[in-house]
Each structure stands twice: as C-alpha cells, then as structure tokens.
C-alpha cells in the first residue's frame, strides 16, 4: 500500500492503482486471434532460433561490410565447430518455413491489434508515463518484484518493450533477412544498401536474434513471476485460471 500511495503522488492515473480488486473481475478475455497467433508465433520462433543456430554452424564467423570469408578478418567468431552440410541444409529449409509462419502470424496479429485499437489504447504510452517519477516508481516496482501479479493494464516498461519488439525489432529482422537474398535485392536494392552491405545485414540479423531471445527470456520470467499457470491458462483459454496465485 505504501508503494501505491507513492505512485499516486507522481501520476494522474495509473490503472494498477485505481483498483486492487480480485483478478477475475478485472481480467480482460484474451481474444481468440491473439491466442492463436501467439502460439503459432511461439512455434515458428522456436523453429527460427533452432534453424538459425544450425545455419550459423556452417560458418560461425561474422563480418562488417559487403563481403567476408575465411580469407578476410572477421568482426568476431563464435566458439562453435564448423559443420559443413547437414544442419545448414535442413536448417535453411526450417528457417524459411518458420519465417513464413512467423510473418503470416505476425501480420495477422498486427492487423487485428490495429483494427481493435489494442496498440493505441493499451500499448501507446501516455505523455505522463514518461515523467521521471513514473519511470522511477515503475523501475522500483520491478526491482522489488512488486505488483507483478496484477492483470490490469501495462506499465511503461512493458509498453515500450512490446512496441519495440513488434514495431522495431521484428521489422528489422525481416528487413535484414531480405537483405541477404540476392533475388529480393535485385528488385529492391535499398534493402541491403540501408545496412551498408550483405555481411553487415547478416551480422545485424544475428544481433537482433540475440535481442529477441533475450526478450523471450525476460517475457517468460515475468510471466513466471506474475503467476505462470494463471497466465498460461489465460493465453490458452482466454481467461486466467480460477484459483488465486500468490500475490
């Protein structure tokens, strides 16, 4: 409670503070399309990570610029064995199949989020959320693992993380992937030129993949802290589990 009062002092309206009613009452039902695309995307994301790793095994060296090969100095190399054939073959097939599923699920999710005004109403931060006080209390809450179990509205860190992943990281991931395709860049050369070269695009694709895996780890950690069973049930059936999690 002390914490809530502290928060109140800094912000005009923060939904978390407005009501501390029980979860079931305030929980919004997760729309079917969001649940469906969440899980097809989860599946494709695992396919992309596994196959991305398999592809790297064929050449675990990264470069900057247009070209790079064993006769040029790498920007960095991963301490992995070089495996020719095998993983990079099925890896590439799995990567593209997963990428199609990811892009189609992602598109469906973004279109539904725009149409339902989910992004504008629930994810676009209000001006006052950028105030120093609001930031401070939000970060402090995270550090103390306070109020993570509540189910009413996103805080500023969540909003920025989700918007960043959906509207910055994933589009950049797709773009840097396209940049490595000799046929796509024959039609749209700017896709590789914005990165400054084929190998730079490959390296950025790798960095972004790491960032997204990091996001996934934080995402799953936060879900675990907020009540794993309840949140998982909500993402499957649409409603959180009936029983109360530890607050």
């Amino acid at each position: 409670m002390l914490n809530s009062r502290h928060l109140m002092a800094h912000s005009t309206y923060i939904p978390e503070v407005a009501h501390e009613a029980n979860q079931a009452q305030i929980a919004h039902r997760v729309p079917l399309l969001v649940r469906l695309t969440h899980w097809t995307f989860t599946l494709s994301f695992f396919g992309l990570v596994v196959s991305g790793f398999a592809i790297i095994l064929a050449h675990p060296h990264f470069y900057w610029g247009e070209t790079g090969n064993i006769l040029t100095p790498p920007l960095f190399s991963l301490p992995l064995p070089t495996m020719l054939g095998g993983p990079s073959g099925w890896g590439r097939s799995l990567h593209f199949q997963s990428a199609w599923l990811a892009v189609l699920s992602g598109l469906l999710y973004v279109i539904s989020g725009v149409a339902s005004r989910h992004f504008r109403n629930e994810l676009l931060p209000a001006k006052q959320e950028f105030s120093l006080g609001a930031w401070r209390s939000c970060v402090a809450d995270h550090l103390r693992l306070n109020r993570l179990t509540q189910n009413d509205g996103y805080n500023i860190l969540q909003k920025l993380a989700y918007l960043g992943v959906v509207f910055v990281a994933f589009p950049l991931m797709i773009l840097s992937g396209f940049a490595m395709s000799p046929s796509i860049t024959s039609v749209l050369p700017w896709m590789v030129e914005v990165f400054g070269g084929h190998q730079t695009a490959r390296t950025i694709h790798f960095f972004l993949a790491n960032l997204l895996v990091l996001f996934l780890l934080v995402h799953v950690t936060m879900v675990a802290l907020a009540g794993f069973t309840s949140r998982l049930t909500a993402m499957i059936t649409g409603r959180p589990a009936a029983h109360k999690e530890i607050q």
Partner: protein
Amino acid sequence: MSEPLSRRKMITAGLAATVTGVAGLTAAERIAHRYGLIPPDSGGVWGPGETLTYAAQRLLMSHHSMAREFNRSDISKAIPVSGEPPSAGLYKELLESSFRNWRIPIDGMVARPASFSIDELKRMPMSSQITHQACEEGWSFIAEWHGVQLSHVLNLVGVSAKAKYVVVNAYDENWDSLDLADAFHPQTFLTYGLNGDDLSTRHGAPLRLKVARQLGYKSVKFLSRITVTDSLKNIGSGKGSLSPDYGYSWYAGI
C-alpha cells in the same frame, strides 16, 4: 447462448473453414502450376516453405530485375573455393590436353541441337558482370565474371515453346536446373573467365554457370552438357537438382 450450441457453431464454422481452405488451396495450386510457381522440390515436409518462397519471389521479381553490380575497386582480393575439381576420368584427360577436345552439347527440346568448343563460345559476344556471390554457408565475395549470356546460346539452338527448364550437367556428377526466367536472365552466363583471366580449374574450368540472383551453389562448375526440357520428373530423384538430395533447396534465390 448455451455452451453446447456455441460448440456446435464452432465445429460447423471450423468444418466450413476447412472445406473452403482445402478448395482454396487446390484452386491456388492449379493456378500456381499454370503460371510456373511450383518448384520441382515442392513435395515433402519443407514443400510448403519452398513453394511459398519460390512463388512469392517469382511474382515479386520482374524477370529481368538485375542483381547489384559493383565497381572494379570492390572486387575481393582473394576468393575462397569450396570443393575440388574432379581428379579422375574424362575430366582429367580433358584437363591434361588443356580442354582442346572439350565441347559442350546442347540438346533436348531445341530446334537445332549443337555443341560448342571454348573458342567458339569465346567468339560469341562477351559479357561481363561484377557481382556479389554469397555461399549458402554464409560467406561471400565480389568478382568480375566473363562469359556469354546463356540466353544467346539458347537462342542459337532455338528453344521449344513447350520447354520449361534448362538442365546442366557437370564432370563432377553434379547437376542442376534453371527455370526459363533465370535461364534467359541477362546476368546468367556460361562463364569462361574470372577477374580478367581464364577460369582456373578450382573455379570450374573450362566453363561454369553464373546465376547472379541465386546463391553460389547454383553457379555449377565443370559444365559437361546442357539439356532443355519440359519436365524434371525423370531426372535424378526428380527434384530439379542434386541439391535436394543433400538437404538443400532447388531454388537458391532465398
């Protein structure tokens, strides 16, 4: 609304969606076949991805979109080579006589089957390109390639209107095929020169394919024969090239 009713509704809607989906996919497949949007390795577990990628790229690319070209100053100082030239058999004999007896036959669905020596190919109009070649493994280089456009040779022999693919065979048992969009593309060369010199054996002497809009493995080395065909079903395992047998895609435009 009672629970059973909504469930029945859901099942009905699900069935309707499935039937529509299957009918839609069947229709889409017929149309795709008609417009040449189905790759020869469209079967199997990776078929959907291969087909979506190939179809989307063929629709996106105007047939003559050009791979990026570079300046001479961008040319890589050293070019790594993967694989070794064939060390025995006919290729060894041809190499020992400096390819004097080498000729490449072009046959199949053509009006005037023919064969050409390297000198005859060199007397045809020479084209050059400074392009980026990326290996499927991830590494890449820029080089200048010299050769004759495959389209020039195909026009000399006269390709049948029913033809759909150009198959290339090599002395190292490798084989591959191109659809006509890539076979007639201005940057698809029968290549006999690299960075101002004759092609070295390590780079595929005396003649290799150069397909600028696809990954390196599509630029087959040590060419021995070119065949024009309307179907790939009876060649090898019927998937359009040797690559699918090793887990790689037939289409390497990625």
